[in-house]
Structure formats: structure tokens, C-alpha cells
């Protein structure tokens, strides 16, 4: 039990997998089978769709039979006793003639039109049932994928870029949509192919075989064409994305470009990509026009053969004239599916790679260990936090925290000071239960954190991160963050307390102002105040603040300091501080260096100690804002920085 909770993973995970571009150029049946798991709830729709496509194909073929065998042979030429198959359509026509007492030609017309209506109806419902099953199945798959990703732990997000996950949730699922739709229409083409083939074979085996000879020719042509264009298409896609990237970057950095007088040089590099794009576009056009025209011509040559060969057969009374016409009308049914198969192969291969990426993400089982029998927290915690001989590293090689012990009594405020890489952030991440660690290290009101559900811990430990993330939505929605337990009044109350109310009221719609593009319409300081309001509204017992390093204009800075001060009232607080004001707010200061507690005490005590803290204080005249490189301390101790 304890072994399994070790923070060091037994098998190191290969996060590089998420970066790998899978080739996926093979037909992976297992993958398709797995995909079917999401379609199986809709299997009745799929079944109905399958039945409907059979009916549709039957009607499509019968329409042609009516034209050639009934109209031409029976009605016009008046030949009824041919050995050629007519699928009893002639009988049906005769029956219609008798029932309605109409000439044969009207009867054939009615039959044709009724078949057409049936064809349209069954065809429509075939497509409808198919698409509804695909849409629903893939929607569920996407939802499961999102839920899965949403609950992966921080250690996962530390290593895998968000863009990679984005691709899976959006583009890769899209590729599956495309593939399933393509497969659906392939079925819609191949069923008539076989129905037509059966009738053709029973009409004239020789002529059918001659025509079938064309199928592999189309197939081979398609294969070579796809092979030749695949690489070209890939280059075209790459150049297009390079073009966009280049333009985007140039636009974002336009001021720098203009100030550096780089316009000409940038235009040249853009032109180069644009030209290479044009060159490959031309290449792909050359190939595809040859291929397209070749396929079209082949079909017409097939027609020529039918006329020539079939003509001879007619004369020898092997075939009826209607039989020949039937062949000419079935030509397309033979060629279209082969051409389409070629088109779908690329989609299929691309979808295979996408499917692989999706399932790889779904199989990623990394998660925070949750206790089997969690301790239920009742009522408010006192807020005592204890770190007891904490040793921790994100991987086996580097240890970040080394025997860190500190107790923060309920309601006490602790400032942690130290350069980046000293382990400050790690301490608060552990307390927020974002990573797995061994039992017996961190306690909340004397309860081992490993005995609590991670969600319980997070509801009671409020974290204000340096980078305040704004979700699109109103100010109010950003404060309550979708938590239905926070009423509007409490959110506004919280905003008032942390001095955010002032600027919010000045916004056009107050609390209902929509925030756009990651809060571009808010200043750094305003975002900080909003972050305070968000945490205060959630009302956690313990507050963790990772103070923003960027300097803000003095007036807003005062509002922030005041807001922070109110936020900390009655809460155990742990502050990763960069400003002297913040540090002086705290009851105790802990100086962390290379994961080791170097100094601990009140501001005054540490000043008197004349150690690291004292030096920091002396060095930084107005405010203690520690550099991310740990320069201040690196000067003191000429040791290598772990980061």
C-alpha cells in the first residue's frame, strides 16, 4: 500500500510519446474494433442504416432494369421471352397494366417513378441513421477523451504541451468523423456495385469480365496517383502552415520588425515559402488533372467496348438490346466505388494515426492516488499545516525538497523566500495535492494528506497562482468559476473586500462584463485583484499565494497589498513572496535554498541573524523581488543552481 504511494513512479513514463508524429500507415483492425466500442450504443441505428442501404441499392439497380429491360426490350421492341434477367420487372409492369388498365409505356413510367421515390426515401434515411450514429458515437468519444484529460494530474501537464492534447480533442476526433463518414459512403457505393455486378454477370459473363478488367486499371491508376500525391500534399500542407506561421509572427512582432528595419528581409523569407508552396501546388495540379481526365476517359472507353462487343452479342442473339443499354448504364456503378476507395484510403490512413493518438491519450492512466477509505472532513478546519521531514523530487534523479520540516499554526502567516529552483513552488504544489508523495509527510489539522481525497484538499486549500487564468465569460462567472454553491451576493461581497469592486463597477456592464481573449481587457493588477476575489469567494481555510513578480504601478500595488491583507484575515496563509510589504505581513519567514530550510523566524529575528535574509534585505533597497535565476543568493553561495 505504502509502496504504491511512492512519489517516484515505479516505471518512468515516456512523455515523448505525446510528441511523436505517428506514421500510422497501416490498417489497424484492433483500432477499428476499439472505436466500435463508442459506436455500439448506436448499433441499432447502424443496423437500420445497413438495411436501408441494401434497399436503396436494390431500387437504384431496378430503375436501370426498368429503363433497359422493360422500356426498351418489353415495351418498344416487344420481346418478352428473352433469357436475360429482368428481376421480374416485366411481370410487375404487366400487372400494373392490368390493374390500372393503362398502356405498357405508362405502366413502365409509373414503375420507374415509384422506384425513384422509394430510392430517394430509403437513401435519405440510410444517410440520416448513419450520420446520427457516427455523430453521437464520436461526440461520446470526444467527451470521454476530454474528461480523461481533464482529470490527469499536474505531473502530466508539466511535461506534455497543451497543444498536443488540443490536437487530440479537436483535429484527431475530426479525422475519425471524416473516416467514418467516408466508410459510410463507401458502403453506399459498394453495395450497388455488387448488386449491379450480379445482374451484369447473369446478363453476359464475357462482357462483364471485359469490363471488370478495367476495374484493376482504375485501381492501379488510383493507387499510383495517391502514392505520388501523398508526399506532395504533405509538403503543400506544410508550406501552408509555414506561411501562416510566418505571417502570424510577423504581425505580432510588427513593431519590432519595423524598429529593426527587417521588412525587406522578412518579405524575402516569406516569398521563398510562398514560391515553394506555389511550386508544389502546381505539381499536385498537374498530377490530379491527368488522373481525373484519365478516369473519365476510361469510363467512356468502357462504353465503346460495350457498344462494340455488345453489338456483336445482340446480332448473335446472345443479348437483347436492353441488355446492352443496361450495361452502359451500369458502367458508373462499377468505376465510382474504386475511385472513391482511392480517395478514402488517404483519409483512412490519416484517421488511423489519429485514432492511435486518441487511444494513446485515453490509455494514459497517470493519476493522483486517492485513498481507499478517505477521512471525511466535517465542518471547518482549524487550518494547522505541518510539513514533516518532507523529501520530494519530480523524478528519481533530482531531489527538490530535502528534509523540509515546518509547522504553521492555525491562522498563522508564513512567507517563503528563495530563488527559483529552491523548492518554494514545490512546497505549495504538494500542499495542494497536485503530486503524489509518501504518507507521513504533510498534515492538515494533523490528518495525513494521503488520507484525504484530493478534491477535498483542494477545496480547503485556496491557491492564487502567479499566472491568473481568465476563462471567457463574465467577471462574475470568473469569480465563482462555475461553482453553484457561490451565490452572486457572496461573489460581489468578496470582490468588494479585496478592492476589486472599484474597477469592476467602472466596466461597462459591471459584474456582467464579458471578458475576452484571456482577459486582454484587464490590466495585470486588476487580474491579480480578481484572483483574490475568486479565492475569497471559494472561502478556503488555507490560503496559498504565489505572488506575481511583475511590477505594477504604485497605486494598484497599494490596492493589491490591502486586498491581500484582508484576504489573509483569519486564514492560515503561505506566501511565496517577492515584495517586502508581503513579507512583512507574515508572522514567520522561511528561507529556502536548494530545497533546504536555511533560516526560519520572524522578519526581525532573521534581520538580526545577519544571514541570507539579511543580505537580501540589504541588497534590495525598496522591495525584495527575487530573480528567477537566483542571482541574489548565487552571489552568496557559489554553488550551482539546480534549475
Amino acid at each position, binding site marked *: 500500500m505504502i509502496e504504491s504511494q511512492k512519489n517516484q513512479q515505479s516505471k518512468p513514463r515516456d512523455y515523448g510519446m505525446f510528441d511523436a508524429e505517428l506514421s500510422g500507415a497501416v490498417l489497424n483492425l484492433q483500432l477499428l474494433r476499439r472505436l466500435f466500442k463508442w459506436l455500439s450504443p448506436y448499433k441499432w441505428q447502424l443496423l437500420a442504416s445497413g438495411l436501408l442501404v441494401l434497399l436503396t441499392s436494390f431500387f437504384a439497380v431496378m430503375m436501370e432494369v426498368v429503363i433497359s429491360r422493360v422500356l426498351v426490350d418489353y415495351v*418498344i*421492341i416487344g420481346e418478352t421471352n428473352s433469357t436475360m434477367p429482368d428481376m421480374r420487372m416485366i411481370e410487375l409492369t404487366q400487372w400494373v397494366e392490368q390493374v390500372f388498365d393503362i398502356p405498357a*409505356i405508362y405502366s413502365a*413510367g409509373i414503375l*420507374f417513378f415509384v422506384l425513384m421515390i422509394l430510392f*430517394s*426515401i430509403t437513401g*435519405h434515411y440510410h*444517410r440520416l441513421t448513419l*450520420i446520427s450514429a457516427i*455523430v453521437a458515437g464520436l*461526440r461520446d468519444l470526444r467527451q470521454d477523451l*476530454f*474528461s480523461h*484529460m481533464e482529470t490527469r494530474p*499536474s505531473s502530466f501537464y508539466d511535461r506534455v504541451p497543451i497543444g498536443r*492534447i*488540443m490536437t487530440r480533442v*479537436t483535429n484527431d476526433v*475530426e479525422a475519425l468523423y471524416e473516416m467514418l463518414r467516408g466508410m459510410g459512403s463507401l458502403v453506399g457505393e459498394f453495395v450497388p456495385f455488387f448488386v449491379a455486378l450480379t445482374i451484369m454477370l447473369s446478363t453476359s459473363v464475357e462482357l462483364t469480365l471485359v469490363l471488370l478488367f478495367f476495374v484493376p486499371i482504375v485501381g492501379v491508376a488510383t493507387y499510383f496517383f495517391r502514392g505520388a500525391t501523398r508526399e506532395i500534399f504533405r509538403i503543400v500542407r506544410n508550406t501552408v502552415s509555414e506561411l*501562416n506561421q510566418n*505571417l502570424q*509572427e510577423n*504581425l505580432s512582432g510588427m513593431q*519590432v*520588425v*519595423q*524598429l529593426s528595419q527587417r*521588412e525587406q528581409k522578412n518579405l524575402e523569407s516569406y*516569398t521563398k515559402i510562398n514560391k515553394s*508552396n*506555389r511550386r508544389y501546388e502546381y505539381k499536385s495540379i498537374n498530377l490530379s*488533372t491527368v488522373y481525373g*481526365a484519365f478516369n473519365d476517359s476510361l469510363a*467512356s472507353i468502357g*462504353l465503346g467496348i460495350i*457498344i*462494340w462487343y*455488345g453489338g456483336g452479342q445482340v*446480332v448473335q442473339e446472345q443479348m437483347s*438490346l436492353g441488355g446492352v*443499354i443496361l450495361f452502359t448504364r451500369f458502367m458508373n456503378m462499377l468505376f465510382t466505388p474504386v475511385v472513391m476507395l482511392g480517395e478514402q484510403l488517404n483519409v483512412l490512413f490519416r484517421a488511423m494515426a489519429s485514432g492511435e493518438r486518441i487511444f494513446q491519450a485515453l490509455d494514459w492512466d497517470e493519476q493522483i492516488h486517492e485513498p481507499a477509505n478517505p477521512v471525511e472532513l466535517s465542518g471547518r478546519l482549524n487550518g494547522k499545516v505541518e510539513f514533516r521531514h518532507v523529501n520530494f523530487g519530480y523524478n528519481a534523479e533530482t531531489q527538490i525538497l530535502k528534509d523540509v520540516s515546518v509547522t504553521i499554526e492555525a491562522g498563522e502567516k508564513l512567507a517563503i523566500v528563495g530563488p527559483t529552483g529552491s523548492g518554494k513552488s514545490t512546497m505549495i504544489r504538494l500542499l495542494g495535492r497536485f503530486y503524489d508523495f509518501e504518507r507521513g509527510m504533510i498534515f492538515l489539522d494533523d490528518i495525513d494528506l494521503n488520507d484525504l481525497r484530493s478534491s*477535498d484538499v*483542494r*477545496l480547503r486549500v485556496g491557491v492564487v497562482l502567479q499566472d491568473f487564468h481568465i476563462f*471567457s465569460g463574465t467577471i462574475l462567472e470568473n469569480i465563482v468559476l462555475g461553482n453553484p454553491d457561490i451565490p452572486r451576493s457572496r461573489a460581489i461581497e468578496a470582490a468588494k473586500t479585496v478592492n476589486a469592486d472599484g474597477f469592476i463597477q467602472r466596466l461597462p456592464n459591471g459584474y456582467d462584463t464579458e471578458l475576452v481573449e*484571456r482577459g486582454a481587457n484587464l490590466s495585470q493588477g486588476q487580474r491579480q485583484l480578481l484572483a483574490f476575489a*475568486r479565492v475569497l469567494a*471559494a472561502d478556503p481555510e488555507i490560503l496559498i499565494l504565489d505572488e506575481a*513578480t511583475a*511590477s505594477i504601478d*504604485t497605486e494598484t*500595488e*497599494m490596492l493589491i497589498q490591502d486586498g491581500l*491583507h484582508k484576504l489573509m*484575515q483569519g486564514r492560515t496563509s503561505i506566501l511565496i513572496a517577492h515584495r517586502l510589504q508581503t513579507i512583512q505581513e507574515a508572522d514567520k519567514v522561511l528561507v529556502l535554498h536548494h530545497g533546504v530550510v536555511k533560516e526560519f523566524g520572524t522578519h526581525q529575528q532573521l534581520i538580526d541573524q545577519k544571514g541570507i535574509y539579511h543580505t537580501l534585505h540589504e*541588497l534590495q*533597497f525598496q522591495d525584495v523581488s527575487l*530573480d528567477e535565476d537566483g*542571482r541574489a543568493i548565487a552571489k552568496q553561495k557559489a554553488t550551482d543552481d539546480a534549475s
Partner: protein
Amino acid sequence: MGFVAFFVARFFEISAFYLVSSGIDEIGELLTRSADAASNVSDVVSQSHTLMTLAGRQISLVTGVILNDVSGYSLAEITAGIVVCVLMRFVFVMYARRSVRRAGIGVSFDLRQKLYRSVQKQGSGFFARMGVGDIMTRAIQDISLVQRLIAFGSFMFVIMVYAPLFAISFMLAKSPSLTLLILPFVPVIFIYAKHAAGQLATTSKDVQDRLSDLSSHTQENLSGIRTVQAQAQEANEIKRFWKTNDAYATAFYAQGRINSLMMSWMPLFAAAAQLVIIIYGGNLVLAGEMSVGDLIFFMFCLTMLLQPIRMAGMFVTIVQRAAVATDRLYEIYDAEPEITDAPTHKTPRNIKGEFELRDLSYTYPGAHEPVLKDISLHISAGESLAIVGRVGSGKSTLLKQFTRMLDTHRGELFLDGHDVCDYPLAQLRVQIAQVLQDPFLFGEPLKENISYDDSQRDIELIWDSADSAALRETIEAFPLQMETMVGERGVTLSGGQKQRATLARGLIRNAPVLILDDCFSSVDTETEEHILNRLKQLRAEQTTILVSHRVSTLRHSDRIVVLEEGRIVEIGSHEELIRADGLYAELERAQTQGASSIKKDRDDTPVTT
């Protein structure tokens, strides 16, 4: 040329159909002949061997098609005629499609080049109006719409004009009465096609919109995953995602439904026309006024007539969308650069760095209040000047006047005694190095980023400037050092590292004037101190203008200007301003003693829960 080729291709296509129907007729005739049929067949077979020698007769065959007279030719000749027509069609169709699609690619190439050139000339007013996302949409979507119009639209247009033209003329030649009976179907189908294309365009746009909702929702959620998890809101977020996800699925289904309906209605309309051919045409055949081949030919022609009409709906949509896209592109192409480069060539080639501001005011286009109001200031060559003020007091606006990033009014800003508007724009921007507030790095190696204005610079110089910007140790820690890629595809630098990299980019130019817009905000005070000392040495004789919020930064400068609502309210050295006990002195107190003043009233605030 493409159009002509198309014309020819269409001709051969319909000829092929025509020959097919003649072939069918021929078979019918053969069928009615009974006794000598066998000998005739052997004739046909033997003639087929001489297919290659038939080339001469093909011409008369084709003329036969035109003159609507192919009787008297054997099956083999007709088959050969088909083959020749098909081959001719192959060549012409290929050429036509190719030239039309190449034209589309060529146009989009030109449009892209033009767009790139246009945006490079634009100033900040343009970018404030357009936004990067907006320009990107135009560059990607609108250009591809125009390309589609040229490649497929003109293709469709040709088919739409020629195919019905040929089909109708051939049909008229065969049976005018049957043709006239079919023609009324054309407008009906066109109206439906147009209606359906409109519906399809709406639903497709809806699908696109829902898809982009889905992407931005995912993007936003994943970027904020730590916040979501910190607040234990995963379940809530998953529920929220369901709505977006389901909305996309619904839109996708709706589009599929419309598409499917169209696929059902179109053939039904066509079948109604076909019904007319079967009954009316069938009766004609029975009456001996038409051949079986002609009946089948009419059915071919019907397809040929209706296919383009179906397309017409789509064509209208493409034209409409491309017209809008073109308008949007020309909004960029036609935008006049805000800053006019009109050098008088009477200005010195090398500037010294002395500025004179005379009642300089600036109002952003569209704004009511001026951001800068009557600023008068003299900056001597070699001086270091610092500017401080609240957010929105006009600091950045003022700095942008020096390099004419904003359109400075004539007669308000003088450099070395000449109006800045008289200098060549390029000279101003080369000789005045300006580091912007937003530390922007390109997705290129660090080396390229630092020596951005001149990629030929010696690597030692680049290291020197990195050193001056206190970035040497950071770069040395990267395995690839100066070759390290930054930006999206490379390493992510911290805010302070980015600022120092852009600072190095400014320093490397060793320009007569250096302008730093709040470039130390994320750099710690101690490193900043180090950089400022370095700057003092390097730029003792050169003009330096900087903006900062920190007194620790400001105090190093010869003079400090305090801006308040676009006006200079205080000016002087650090000591002078402290003695004056004004805004600056207040700021200094706030930054040094702010903490203790808050401490005082700590216990007066009520506890909120």
C-alpha cells in the same frame, strides 16, 4: 485559353454520348436485319482490325455528328469514333482544368505577397483597428475563397454555360418537341439548387462556428487546467464541455440532414424529367418517329443538362462569398500607411541625439481626449532621461513619438535641430534603438533574436550584448546556447529572461539614442542594478530615455520626468524631486515605507468569511 479548351472538350464529350446512342441504334438496326446478320458481324470484326487506318474517316464521322447524320457507319467505326472523341476530350479537359487551377494558385500567390507587403507598411493605428486574428483570417480564409472562385468557380461557369448549350442544341436537333417538354424543369431545378446551396452554406458555417467554439473551449480549459484543478472544478468543467461538444454534434447532424435531403430531392426532380422522356419519347419511338438510341441519348443529355444546374446554386454561393472576401482583402490593400516617409535629404546622416519637444500633443485616432498635452522638453545629446507616471499617463505614447511609430505632428518634435518628419523613416529607426514594453521574441534561435536587425553580426558582439543585458549565464545554461530556439516551438523563457533578451536586442545596436519602455518590470532589482551600471558605462556619451515604475531604476537617470494625465508635472534629478516633495517623493515613500503603513491598520479590518 482554358475556356476554349473547355469548349472543345465539351464538344467531344457530347460527341461521345452521341456516338454511344448511334451505336445503340446501330445495334437495333442489326437486330431487325435477320438473315445476313452473321456475315455482317464478321465484317464488323474484320473492320475492327483496321481501326488504326480509320483516322481519316474520323473527321467525317465527327462532321457526321455535327450534321446529325451518322447512319452508314459500322459499329467498329462508331466505337473508334468514341475512342477518338474520348482521347481528344482527355487532352482538352486536362489542359483546361490545369490552366484554370494554375490561375487560381497564381492569384492566391499574388494576393499573399500583396498582403504581406501591405501590412508591413502599416502603423499601430491599423493594427489597433484590425487585430492580428482578423488579419490572419483574411489571409487564410479570404484568399482561399478567392482562389476557389478562380479555380472552381470559373470551371463551373464554363460547364454551366457550355454543357446546357450543347445538350440543348443536340436535343433540339433530335426532337424539338421532347426538348421543349424537358426545358421547363430547368428553372425549377435551378431554384431548388440555389435554395439548397444557401441552406447548405448556412449549416456549413454553423458547423465551422461550432467547431471553432469547440477548439477555443478546449484551448481555454486546458490552459487553465491548473486553476480548474486547484478549485476542484473538473466535474463542472466536464459538464460545461458537454454543451459545446453536443452543440457541435447537433450542428454536424443538421448539416448532414440538409445535405442528404438535397441528395434525395435532386434525383427526384431529374426523375420527373426522365418520366417525360420515357412516356413521350417512348411513344415517339413506338410511333417510329424516334430511334431507341435517341431515347437513350436524351437521357444522357438530361444528366448533362441538370448537372450544371445543380452546380449553379453552389456557384452563386461561391461568387457571393468571394466578393465579400475580396472586399475584405482590399480593406487591407487599400489602407494608407499612417506614417508618411517624406525625407527632405537636408537632415544629417548621423544623428547626435538631441531632442526638442515643442508643445507636443497627441490624440489617438477616434479618441476624444489627447493622451499627450503640450509637452515641451529639451533633451541634450548624451543625457539619460527617465519617465514615470501612472498607467495611461502617456509614457509609451511619448516614447513612440521618437521613432515615429506614431504619426508625430510636424513642428512638434526636433532631432538635432531638424523636424523628425524630415528624416528618412529608416534612418530614425536604425539610429534610435527602441525596446518595447512587450518583450516579443520570434520563433528563431536566440542569436537571431538578439541580432534581429542584422543577421550577419559577429557572434562575439552578440555575446557581449547578452552580457550587458545580464543574460550570458542564462544562455550558457542552455545546451544549444545561442542556437537555442525560443517561442512556441522552442524553450519557454521566463518574463524576466524575455525582457533581458529584448534588452540585448536594443543594446547590440549601439545606437546614438536608446529608448527603453519599462523593460525591467520582471527583472529583479539586483540584476537591474547590474544592467543599469553597465548601461552607464556603455552609454555615457549617448542619449538614453527610459520608462519605469521603480524608484530604484529612475534614480539613476540625470533627470526624471513625472507624467500625469499627459502633462509633465515634475522634472528634475532624483534629489531635486525628493526635495520638491511632490508626486515623485510620494511615490518614493510608498515604495519604501508602504508596508508599514498598511501594517498599522491591520487589526481594524473586519474578518470576512
